C-alpha cells in the first residue's frame, strides 16, 4: 500500500527534472540560434616556424620531455586543422604537448585557384620533405616522428617510401587509407566507369568546398538528422553544448581541394591503387613502402566509412618494420582525434607508444 505514493512521488520528481531540462533546452536553443558565445577554437599557444606557399609549419609550446619531435601531417583540403586543437581539455595537440612532446603541425592551408596545379607529388616530394627538415632544424634533433591522420598518412607514407634516407624515428597512421581496393561508398562512386575526374578538374579547375561538403553529406545522409536529435536530447547540458558548437563549426567549414591533387588522388589511389600495389612513382622516385623500417603504429576506427579499417591496416603488411602494432578502436573517422572516446582510448595509447620510442 505504501509503494503507491512513493511511485507517484518518484514519477513526479522525474517529470519535474525532465521539465527543468526542457526549460534549459529552450534557453540554450535561443542562445544557439542567436549565435551568442561563438566557440573559440585552436587555443593552444603556437608560433609559425616556416611557410611554403600556403603550407605553414606551427610549433606548439610546452615543456619538452621527449627528445624526438613530432611532425603531425593532417589531411589536405576538405576541412580545417583546428579539429586537432578544438577546445582546452578536448584537444589532441594539447594532450600530446602536455605529455611532453615537441609538437609540430603542418597546416596545408586553404587553397585558391592559384593552387589548382598543386599535385600529390608536390606535397609528398617537395613540401613535406622541406617541412620535415625544418622540424629537425628547429627542434635541434637528428630524428623526428611522423604522425599522419587521414590523407596525411598516405602522404607521409609516400614521402618516407620515396625518401628512405630521411631520419624518421617512428611513424603513426591514424585512420589513413593505404589500400584502396575496398573503400566503401567513396570507392564505389569514384570508380572510373562512373566518375570522370578529368572532366571535373578540366571544367572546375579545383574541387569547390560546396562539392566537397556534398560528397561527405552524401556519404551519411542521415548525419544531420542524427546530430539534430542528439543535440535536442543533450541541449540542456552546457558542456555538451560547448563541444557541439566547436565541432559543428568545424564540421560545416569545408575547404576546397586543388584540382591536380584531386585528379592524381582519384586516379592513382582510388582507381589504380598504386600505393598498395607498389607502382606509385613520384617525381621519378619509386614509392617503396617496404623501405620503411621504423617502428610503426597503425590505428583504425571500426565504423570508419571514409577510411575503412582494412584499408588502414594494410600498411602493417606493406612496410619493412619489425616493431609494428595495429589497434582498432570503436567509433568513426573523427572519433580518433576529437571527442570523449578519442581522449579516453586513442590519445593515451598513441602518447604512451610514442613516449616509449622517443
Amino acid at each position, binding site marked *: 500500500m505504501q509503494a503507491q505514493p512513493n511511485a507517484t512521488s518518484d514519477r513526479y520528481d522525474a517529470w519535474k527534472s525532465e521539465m527543468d531540462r526542457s526549460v534549459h533546452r529552450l534557453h540554450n536553443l535561443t542562445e544557439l540560434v542567436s549565435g551568442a558565445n561563438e566557440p573559440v577554437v585552436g587555443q593552444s599557444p603556437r608560433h609559425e616556424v616556416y611557410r611554403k606557399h600556403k603550407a605553414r609549419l606551427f610549433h606548439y609550446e610546452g615543456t619538452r620531455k621527449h627528445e624526438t619531435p613530432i611532425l603531425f601531417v593532417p589531411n589536405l583540403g576538405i576541412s580545417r586543422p583546428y579539429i586537432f586543437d578544438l577546445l582546452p581539455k578536448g584537444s589532441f595537440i594539447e594532450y600530446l604537448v602536455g605529455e611532453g612532446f615537441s609538437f609540430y603541425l603542418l597546416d596545408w592551408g586553404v587553397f585558391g585557384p592559384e593552387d589548382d596545379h598543386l599535385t600529390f607529388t608536390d606535397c609528398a616530394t617537395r613540401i613535406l620533405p622541406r617541412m620535415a627538415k625544418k622540424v629537425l632544424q628547429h627542434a635541434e634533433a637528428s630524428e623526428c616522428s611522423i604522425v599522419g591522420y587521414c590523407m596525411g598518412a598516405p602522404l607521409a607514407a609516400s614521402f618516407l617510401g620515396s625518401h628512405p634516407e630521411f631520419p624518421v624515428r617512428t611513424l603513426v597512421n591514424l585512420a589513413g587509407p593505404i589500400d584502396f581496393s575496398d573503400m566503401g561508398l567513396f570507392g564505389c*562512386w569514384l570508380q572510373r566507369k562512373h566518375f570522370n575526374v578529368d572532366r571535373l578538374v578540366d571544367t*572546375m579547375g579545383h574541387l569547390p568546398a560546396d562539392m566537397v561538403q556534398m560528397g561527405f553529406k552524401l556519404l551519411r545522409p*542521415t548525419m544531420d538528422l542524427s546530430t539534430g536529435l542528439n543535440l535536442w536530447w543533450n541541449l540542456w547540458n552546457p558542456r555538451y553544448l560547448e563541444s557541439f558548437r566547436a565541432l559543428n563549426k568545424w564540421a560545416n567549414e569545408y575547404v576546397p581541394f586543388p584540382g591536380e591533387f584531386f585528379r592524381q588522388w582519384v586516379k592513382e589511389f582510388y582507381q589504380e591503387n598504386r600505393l598498395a600495389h607498389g607502382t606509385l612513382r613520384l617525381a621519378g622516385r619509386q614509392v617503396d613502402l617496404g623501405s620503411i623500417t621504423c*617502428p610503426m603504429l597503425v590505428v583504425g576506427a571500426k565504423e570508419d566509412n571514409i577510411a575503412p579499417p582494412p584499408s588502414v591496416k594494410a600498411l602493417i603488411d606493406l612496410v619493412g618494420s619489425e616493431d609494428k602494432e595495429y589497434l582498432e578502436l570503436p567509433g568513426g573517422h573523427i572519433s580518433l582525434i576529437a571527442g570523449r572516446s578519442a581522449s579516453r582510448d586513442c590519445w593515451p595509447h598513441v602518447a604512451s607508444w610514442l613516449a616509449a620510442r622517443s
Partner: protein
Amino acid sequence: MPDSAPSEDLFALWRKQMEASTEAWSKAVEQMASQGQAPMSPPDPTVFWRQFTDPGASTWASFQSAGPVDPDVLKQWKRFLDDWIAAWTKALEQAMGTDAFGEALGKTLDQFLTLQDKTQEAVQGSSKATLDALGLPSKDQIIGLSRQLMDLEDRLESLEDQIGALGGPKTAAPAKKKAPRKPSKSKSSGVGQKKVKKRGTKRS
C-alpha cells in the same frame, strides 16, 4: 508504465521490417538497372516504405497509451528514433553502394558539368571584356602573378639549399645542422627506448 520487454520486441520487429524492406528496395533498384531503366535518382523510398512505417508508428502510439506516462517514455522514444535513423542509414548505404546509384551519380555530375561549362564560358567572356574596358586585371592574370610569386619562392628555396650545401653563410634562420642532440631529460626514457626496440611488438 509498461515494462521494457514489449518495447524490445517492438524495436526488434521494427528493425526486421527495415532490413527486409531495404533488401527489397536494393533489389528493385538493381533490377531496374539491369533492364536498362537506371533512374537519374533513386526511387522515392518513402512511398515504398510507408507500408512498413505507418503500422509501426500506430503500434507505437497505441502501445504508449496503454499505461500511465512516465518520463522514461522520452528515453524510449529517443532510442526508437536512434534505431529508426540507424535503420535508414543502413538502408541508404546499401542502396547508394550499388552500381546503379554510382552510375546515376556520375550522370548527374556530367549534366552539372555541361551546364557549368556553358555558364563559365558566358560569364568569363563578358567579365573579361568588362575588366579590359576598365583597365583592370582579369582573374587569370592575378592567378598568373600569384604563380610567378610561388615560382620565385621555390627558386629562393633552391638557392638557400645550394648555399647550405656549399657550407656558405647560414641563410636558413634556425638552421643548426650539426647541433648536438639535447640530452635526454629523464635517463629512464632512453633506457626504455632501447628495451622497447628489442621487444618489437608485432600484433598484425
